[in-house]
């Protein structure tokens, strides 16, 4: 039986290496500088993913600007004031929300933002990603704050500091590196999201700097290229995937090796 469980572990880690290796090989062969900066062109005329990279970056940034403060504040509430029925309810609902399919979040934002605005937009895409981030960041923040020894809180309180000063000046800085780790992992997670962007941000063939217009993203572009009929498109899908997976895996590996803890 021992060898059987070892085979399971070897099989799955082997698959991971196989997938990453395949992406690397297929991706490298079609990447060049022009591909990274150009916009999509009709089949046969080259083209690239520059606008998709920009769109992904803009929407992820928007998501982080909204999702991180709200998520971290919610996490601080859960850790510092959440030992009652209300805290337990929020904790439970947050965990359940994390498991809700991201395409449902897409529908939610579609009804809330896209229908009233009358068109898809980068704003809607970024909001959808923010909604996905909030519960994840809240829960990791809570876990990190709980690791701060209560003796630190008690010490500050004993010196006469008010509760909010203790949370703001003592507890948050002590938990900062852990919270940052959770934040980076949440950012990596939403960078790879496709489903919530399909009908909120839609896609665009051009460089777009305005949040009220449809916006391209790496993931939606990969989806379009992968399901397209032409071999050139498939090659571009692999190249774009290399960029996407490379970014996400680098964030994951860096963050986890730097902090040496398991989240």
């Amino acid at each position, binding site marked *: 039986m021992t060898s059987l469980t070892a*085979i399971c572990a070897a099989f799955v880690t082997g698959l*991971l290496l196989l*997938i990453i290796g395949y992406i690397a090989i297929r991706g490298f062969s079609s990447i060049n500088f022009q591909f990274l900066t150009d916009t999509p062109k009709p089949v046969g005329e080259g083209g690239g993913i520059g606008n998709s990279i920009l769109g992904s970056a803009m929407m992820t940034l928007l998501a982080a600007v909204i999702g991180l403060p709200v998520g971290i*504040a919610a996490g601080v509430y859960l850790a510092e004031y959440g030992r009652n029925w209300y805290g337990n309810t*929020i904790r439970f609902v947050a965990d359940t929300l994390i498991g809700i399919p991201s395409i449902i979040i897409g529908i939610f934002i579609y009804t809330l933002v896209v229908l009233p605005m009358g068109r898809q937009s980068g704003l809607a895409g970024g909001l959808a990603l923010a909604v996905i981030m909030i*519960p994840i960041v809240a829960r990791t923040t809570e876990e990190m704050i709980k690791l701060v020894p209560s003796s630190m809180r008690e010490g500050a309180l004993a010196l006469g500091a008010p509760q*909010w000063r203790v949370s703001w000046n003592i507890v948050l800085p002590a938990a900062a590196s852990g919270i940052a780790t959770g934040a980076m992992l949440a950012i990596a997670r939403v960078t790879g999201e496709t*489903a919530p962007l399909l009908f909120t941000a839609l896609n665009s063939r051009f460089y777009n700097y305005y949040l009220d217009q449809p916006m391209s993203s790496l993931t939606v572009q990969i989806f379009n290229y992968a399901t397209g009929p032409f071999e050139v498109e498939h090659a571009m899908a692999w190249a774009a*995937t290399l960029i996407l997976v490379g970014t996400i895996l680098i964030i994951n590996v860096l963050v986890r090796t730097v902090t040496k803890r398991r989240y």
Partner: protein
Amino acid sequence: MAQTGALGDKIFRAVLLLAATSILLIVAGIFVMMVQNAMPTIGRFGIGFLFGSEWKPAQEEFGALPFIYGTLVSSVLALIISVPISLGIAIFLVEQAPKGIAKPIAFMVELLAAIPSVVYGLWGIFVLAPFIREYLGPVLQGYLGFIPLFQGRVTGIGMLTGGIILALMITPIITAVVRDVLEAVPTTQREAALALGATKWETTTIVLGNAASGIAGAVVLGLGRAIGETMAVTMVIGNSPQISASLFEPANTIASLLAANFAEATDRTYLSALIEIGLVLFLVTFVVNAFAKILVMGVASRNGKAA
């Protein structure tokens, strides 16, 4: 100082409370907005929506059954493949492997969860589907072709491919939860079993027995993820609203239907039908996830008290 402290405390706490409450508001908002926007078809088709087997938007005929069927079968298929493998990995990592080996393997399994869904879909289209068409499909048909499950033409795109991709994607989640659950079982139980002369494997079965409800929670959590997984399935399942006994035939899931059609749905009735089926997905995944959470919490609190 005391005065500003008291005021500061109040403001600080109110801001945090607002942020925390936003999580409740989001979930309530999802429910309210979806019900509101699905009202046209809820009112028009009623409960029959769930049991109709024809999906023809052009004729305003909306039956959700093929998608519910596809979602269930692909998810169960994923569990059948993934649960034994995930259990094996978790047992290996917690009970058997030396730390030096367990840590990097655990890390790599977690990385599987970091790979985006659309990337699994890409890999599924160009690597897994051809593999099933050329190798796995013919072999399965050769040995098990007498069962309806394995009859029909093998194109590589269909229910089986969707199930296998899903299995791969939920394995890291199930493994991680089972690991946590196994680690929560007190070491004294293992020592007691070993002291009574049990072999290592017998000891492991005892540990598994004690962690049973937590493992069940992990499986239910995996089910929840499989039900809602969207992009990878959309790309390999064939997107055909049919109910077929064969695993090689194309099928469709609720999430794939939404991914493939929502952006083009400009007609109000069609949009309402899609949102209604999305509402079904929301409610099912919410209940499944809540149930999983209760199961896993049970183990944690029981062992917490015992320790």
